[in-house]
């Protein structure tokens, strides 16, 4: 199980980095989303993995998984939605204003300086 989770983190990170390095805004946003998944799972797994031991207290049950990373990741997921929405809005505004969705300054804008 550990191998699966770790390799999933690796694959998501790799995909995220590659997409973040693209030249248009939309793939960069997708890349950030992939990195968000990777980071959230990474944080979550810092409590180590457990199957069938949810942190819901029950009589007679002694082992529970670590609840703290879950609480942290829960808010992280919601916040990352907010941040994704902001960055989508920013890139949308930039595109609507200039008809251009490149993430880098384009050569002709540099020449104007």
């Amino acid at each position, binding site marked *: 199980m550990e191998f699966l989770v770790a390799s999933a983190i690796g694959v998501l990170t790799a995909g995220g*980095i590659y997409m973040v390095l693209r030249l248009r805004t*939309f793939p960069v946003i997708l890349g950030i989303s992939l990195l968000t998944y990777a980071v959230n799972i990474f944080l*979550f*797994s810092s409590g*180590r993995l457990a199957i069938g031991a949810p942190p819901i207290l029950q009589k007679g049950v002694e082992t529970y998984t670590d*609840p703290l990373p879950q609480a942290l990741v*829960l808010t992280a997921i919601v916040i990352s939605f907010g941040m994704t929405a902001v960055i*989508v809005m920013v890139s949308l505004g930039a595109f609507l204003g200039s008809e251009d969705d490149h993430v*880098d300054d384009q050569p002709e804008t540099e020449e104007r300086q």
Partner: protein
Amino acid sequence: MSLFLIVALPFFGALLPGLMNSAGRAACGGLTFMVTLAAFIGLLTNLPSVLAGEVVTASLTWMPALGLNFTLMLDGLGFFFAFLILGIGLLIIAYGRHYLSREDHMGEFFTYLLLFQGAMVGIVLSDNILLLLVFWELTSLSSFLLIGYWKHLPEGRQGARMALTVTGMGGLSMIGGMLILGQIAGSYDLSVILQNREAIQADPLYLPALILILIGCFTKSAQFPFHFWLPHAMAAPTPVSAYLHSATMVKAGIFLMARMWPVLAGTPEWFVIVTTAGLVTMVLGAVIALFKHDLKALLAFSTVSHLGLITMLLGTGTAFGAMAAMFHILNHATFKAALFMSAGIIDHETKTRDIRRLGGLRTLMPVTFGIATLAALSMAGLPFLNGFLSKEMMLEETTHTTLFGSPMLVPVLATIGSLFSAAYCFRLIGHTFLGPVREDYPAKPHDPGPGLWLPPAILVVLVVVIGVAPFLAEPFVKIVTASVLGDAAEVPKAYFKIWHGLVPALYMSVAALIGGLILMAVYKPLLALWDATPRPEAKVIFDAIVESAAALARAVTEALHNGAFTRYAAVGVAAILAVGLHAWSTGTIGAPTRPFEMPELVPMAGWAMLVAATLALVLLHRNRFMALILIGIVGLMVSLGFVLLSAPDLAMTQFTVEVVTIILMLLALNFLPKTTPMEGSALRQIRDAGLAIAGGLAAFALAFHFLMREAVTTPISEFHLANSYKGGGGTNVVNVILVDFRGFDTYGEIIVLGIAALLIYALTETLLDGPVRAKLLNRVPDQPQGGNMHPMMMVVLTRVMMPIVLLVGFYIFLRGHNEPGGGFIAGLVVSIAVVMQYMASGFSWASARLRYPYHGVIGAGVLVAGLTGIGSWFVAKPFLTSDFTYVRIPPFHEFELATAALFDVGVFLAVVGAVMLSLESFSRLARRADMEDSEHAMDIDPSRGDAPEQAGG
């Protein structure tokens, strides 16, 4: 009056002129005057204690761990300077009220002036050197505002910038010096530092501390080689020049040298540095002043020269030198403020300050002539005026000073300085007031009203009184000197009198006066000679230094930041990888402590889908709709992973967030290109792929290594598990952590979420207000449009589902404390229910039924959560302490009531508001001009053209 109040009055008073500006100039100036007068009277109430030799203190603990306390003290020295600052401040305010013209914003001016005044009073009353540094920086900032007050003048702006650069740089250096000093003494309180003379002077760090502090003092007090900023600061309105350069700003450096005199002075290093700098400044300033044609520039350089004189006296390190310095500070403040104000009057009435265009004003402006002449003669050092007395004392002191092994060097240079000083004073009188009346003044000169001449006249009365009856000033100057000297030396016995007998100082004085007259006689050839001599222009050098520093900064910045985001991202990834690799190769890794388990089939299948979807996303991302579907699969698999790995709350959150994220992306994609073009070279793609694979491997290795090992220490969540039910009253530990243990975190997070949503709303508003609006309204959709905008099946279904989904949300919310669920998830579920209505029935239909704006919902959520937290104050518990109880209302089962549930309501509301405000903002962009707003839910898009006509809504 409490010292706190004296310091605070100008700062609080600074609010008033700005508010009173519309009440008229008299009210504005009068109020400023009253504020300063109150502080001045407050200061005077402390006079008896100061005269009795006591030190008045007031202290307030601020950050004791850092040694930073709000400690004030008032001794003779502090009283003297505070008296000058507030006393001359009163005259300047009275003068400034009449000086400023109707175009000048008076409230702004007096606000700056009071801020500056407060900062200066703060410096001279501080007992803690860190506090002193704070006020020190405040004077730099507020003087910047004052010098640059006439924002329309380029000289004003440049002068203000130069003053800020030089004094700010000196301030930085001083912070370093003061910190070293505090470290040596073991305290940042002046009263302690001043007791540690031997320890400080014996410390190896004494010299660095001394040099750093002196740079701070020299820059502030315009000592060579930092003297050049002061003349450029003359672009300020004259009241500012008179205030800053006679009694306050430039005296701050002198004050600090005097304040630190007991611990820093008396060593050979102090003597050589301070005396030399003072001597050079004194002579240089006097020589340059003689050849300046602008009245204020002449006075500026004479100020530089006199500051040099005072610095030199402090540098000698003798008690007599210190006393002469204190006396000269008093005298200089009186005659120089009077002279500046006179220069302002001349400028005001004749519209020029150029001496070459003046002359003959004696008969036209007799009052001004009288004031300026007496003040200038005092500055030249004529008997029966106060300048004579302190100049005699200075010359007397120089005859006992041996610098660089030569007993003649200091007296000769001091005499030369006095000679030039006398010469420029004579020139000031001669070329401005004497001579024939001219016909070509820019404006017809006449004496101003008493509002302008009374303040300098009061000062000139002091000049004469002290000059004729020096014994009146003697006790006061001696008290000040005593507090400068501290325990380091005895106050000299010497009496202040006009006639000391035929001493060397008298001969030197006479030589200076006669030499000054001779220089005046040969002024024309001298001026020609001066104009012919090449000399370095300080402003050019300064500008060149600033320019080269800026060029260097620009070169470094542009090499690192060329505006290409992808470049930063690549450099960032590579740097993180390099650091990680270093840690990996130099650290040690223990053996795995957890068993390696073969995964079962179902998790394997989920993993395979996640990996396949990610790879497909990377390969097919150019088709943007496809990419969205693929990222949806990834998110779904992540949610399922959370289900498997004992995190039901996370799974629910991830799943619902996934839904709203995809809707959001679809809304955005509506306006964006639907495909990504092929771009970037193959080499570049290989580089990116290499970076990505390296990053992925690193993340995998890191995760796998810690997953195979147990935590090194017991996780703190043991506490959470043990206390969740006992202390928080809930069995869902994750929810209890969110709303109880770490409630403050959550509170911050809902605020962040709310801010993000408001930011999106604001950006949308900006877009819709700007040129984009027309573009959006006239947009022609780039995709084929469905004819049926609001399909009947969907409308009916969503409306039927709405109450059910709301019920589910309510249920999830209620059970959250004990079972998976809670405010976050319930908020997301309810948002989805509302979004469905927008999607199915249309934006207008849904908006028309919206009773509360989403901003309000966010605000209510934050407010509810915050008030719940504050509620615990009423039972004397810290913020957000929760409480719960069990109640039973027959015939229902016993149930729990917890304050945490109320907090969760806040979370719920904030989440609903934030999600809905974001999505609604995006939808608002989609309105087009060719579509009518329709309140009908089920209608046909009329823009499609081929719509069946009978199917209207």
